[in-house]
């Protein structure tokens, strides 16, 4: 397990949890990124500003980390332009249909012990694991 980084993973995970708790404490909202994004499209104007602010903070973090000297490498996304676009469409449509993503279901939902979120997380984890097994070991291997 040469790539395993347990300490930075634990610190990062705790910060994600802290963000979810603070957003609920201050604004009474669930820190689910797909829900925050999805609401941008159709929410009434008064409900839009906090969503834009959260997304702005999300983008500002890597910039600030980079300025502070923390390495923020260019993400290596596998696949060509078309595969990436198909993946994006699936993630966008799927998270709206399924009412959440890794943060909304995987962190906030499971933390509430929501049966819906536990089920959704098991399904999207299983689907992703199967796709990676196929693309890396069956097709790609």
């Amino acid at each position: 397990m040469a790539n395993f980084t347990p300490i930075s993973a634990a610190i990062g995970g705790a910060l994600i949890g802290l963000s979810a708790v603070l957003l609920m404490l201050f604004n009474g909202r669930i820190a689910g990124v797909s829900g925050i994004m999805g609401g941008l499209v159709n929410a009434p104007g008064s409900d839009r500003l906090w969503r834009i602010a959260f997304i702005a903070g999300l983008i500002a973090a890597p910039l600030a980390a980079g300025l502070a000297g923390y390495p923020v490498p260019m993400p290596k996304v596998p696949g060509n332009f078309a595969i990436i676009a198909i993946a994006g469409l699936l993630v966008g449509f799927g998270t709206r249909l399924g009412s959440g993503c890794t943060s909304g279901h995987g962190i906030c939902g499971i933390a509430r012990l929501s049966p819906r979120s536990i089920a959704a997380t098991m399904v999207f984890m299983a689907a992703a694991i199967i796709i990676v097994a196929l693309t890396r070991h069956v097709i790609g291997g």
Partner: protein
Amino acid sequence: MPALASLVCGFIFGLGLVISGMVSPTKVLGFLDVLSIPSGNWDPSLAVVMAAGLAVTGIGFALVRPRTPVFESESRWPTASTINRPLLTGAALFGIGWGLVGLCPGPAIADLATLSPAVIDFVIAMMLGMVGYDLWQSRAAPQIESKVLNTGTADG
């Protein structure tokens, strides 16, 4: 004030993604690639991120639950409780897309900071997928359109 609090929360969330390495599709896919366990190349970091995130969120939510939010009149705790077909179908479609490229919504948005063309491609497609869902919903059930749209974030 709610927007400022939200900005700070987004920033903390983003720092968590950067520090944990979850902004890297390589690290995410390294976790999802369970067939690499025998070779010793598996990366369990994502499981640690989730465990730490769940510990903090679980305790924090229990403390926050009885309180009224500081900047809003009421908390919007999700109320949906039935495990239904849209939930499971949506989760499966999301999982397929996530497994293809290793990007889910949070890290994809944070990675926009790098101006990576691949990430920009992904995020534009993701937003189209979200808009597509909303259009499909309003066509499928125009009579309950406003209701569906307002409760579209039932879980997060």
